[in-house]
């Protein structure tokens, strides 16, 4: 290219223009589909996510659903059902089991918050709400135990019924504790695992104790 050999730029020529980098495709239709999806779709999506997590608790494996897509609907439902089933155990029927109901609520949520703070102070990598989510969902086996206990108590409240309840509650307590430590203990440094597991053990023990000592009037 002989012509080009003579080309030389003697001075700085300012170069200007526009560089646009397409950042994904934001067509108006896509905005509508993600931001304006029908409400029914959102509800169904969330309900399915909650159901999936219940299944993952019953068969504890490393589950990304419980850890990454956390939500607190499951713990709320479980907490309310457990508190409903636990009320009516006081002699003072005029009070309508009021204090017991709020007590169960406070024990579960306050206990879960304290455990989460504890694990965060020990240097855990899991986030606050993830931990609450796991602890809340792992109350499911104990809620099942409560249901079984109430059914057994309908049949009678003698020694046999107590032994059955003891076995059921004990088994579910073990299941809850194992399930939650399976999810939570991994996020801790190895030498701190016992320090994290112990409060979880205590938490589910208190709930199991409330279930076991429940006697309807």
């Amino acid at each position, binding site marked *: 290219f002989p012509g080009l050999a003579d080309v030389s730029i003697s001075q700085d020529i300012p170069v200007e223009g*526009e560089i*646009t980098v397409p*950042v*994904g*495709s*934001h067509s*108006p239709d896509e*905005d*509508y589909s*993600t*931001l*304006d999806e029908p*409400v029914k779709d*959102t509800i169904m999506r*969330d309900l399915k996510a909650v159901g999936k997590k219940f299944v993952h608790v019953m068969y504890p494996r490393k589950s990304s659903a419980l*850890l*990454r*897509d*956390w939500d607190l*609907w499951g713990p*709320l439902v479980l907490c*309310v059902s457990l508190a*409903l089933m636990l*009320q009516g155990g006081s002699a003072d029927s005029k009070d*309508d*089991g*009021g*204090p017991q*109901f*709020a007590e169960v*609520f*406070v024990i579960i949520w306050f206990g879960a918050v304290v455990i989460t703070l504890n694990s965060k102070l020990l240097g855990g*990598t*899991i*986030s*606050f*709400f*993830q931990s609450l989510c796991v602890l809340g969902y792992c109350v499911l086996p104990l809620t099942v135990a409560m249901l079984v206990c109430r059914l057994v108590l309908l049949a009678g409240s003698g020694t046999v019924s107590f032994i059955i309840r003891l076995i059921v509650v004990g088994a579910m307590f073990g299941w809850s504790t194992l399930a939650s430590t399976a999810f939570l203990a991994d*996020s801790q440094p190895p030498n701190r695992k016992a320090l994290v597991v112990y409060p979880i053990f205590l938490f589910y023990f208190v709930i199991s104790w409330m279930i076991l000592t429940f006697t309807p009037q």
Partner: protein
Amino acid sequence: GLSPQALVDDTEDVSLDFGSEEELALRKARIRHPLATFFHLFFRVSGIVTYLFCDWFSNSFVSCFVTILLLLSFDFWSVKNVTGRLLVGLHWWNQIDEDGKSHWVFEAKRVPTIAASTEAEARIFWFGLIICPVIWTMFFFSTLFSLKLKWLALVIAGISLQTANLYGYIHCKLGGQKASRETSRLFGTADVPKRQSRRISEDGTEEHGKTGTR
């Protein structure tokens, strides 16, 4: 501008295309999302009304507690996931990436579409969002001082849920405003990005950017 047909002939009957009648009505309406506006206020106000008048509805503490709790939860979910997006074009959520790090994302829609929100809707939204946590805080003090402590758990739950939404949306709004000031400084008004968002990780580091997913 005028459609090309209008320039053809002065005596010809020309129909200018303003869009369908529905779109026209939508643009004129003061409230474009009546259902969302209704539900935004419905759950919050029902919760407060039930708390104030629960003795009239039922003797049972437990049923009042559960009802108010359910109303508060539905309100939290609907305000966070539905009415915020529809009424003011803001959205906030928590995202956990593959490393297990948790990020809070605050997103503000910037380009107005036909069905975007009106000023009346925005005013109703912010009014409902701000006044209810204030009312629940007043309930907190009245419960505390009248020593009706069994309601305290419920009032605290109400305050937390409603304040969380308030805080999230204020963050979105401020993030959008701050980013729009920076954008006008850098780009002029020509190249305005469609959505601004801020991601805040749990350890406090912050990044601005445009997001696409979720």
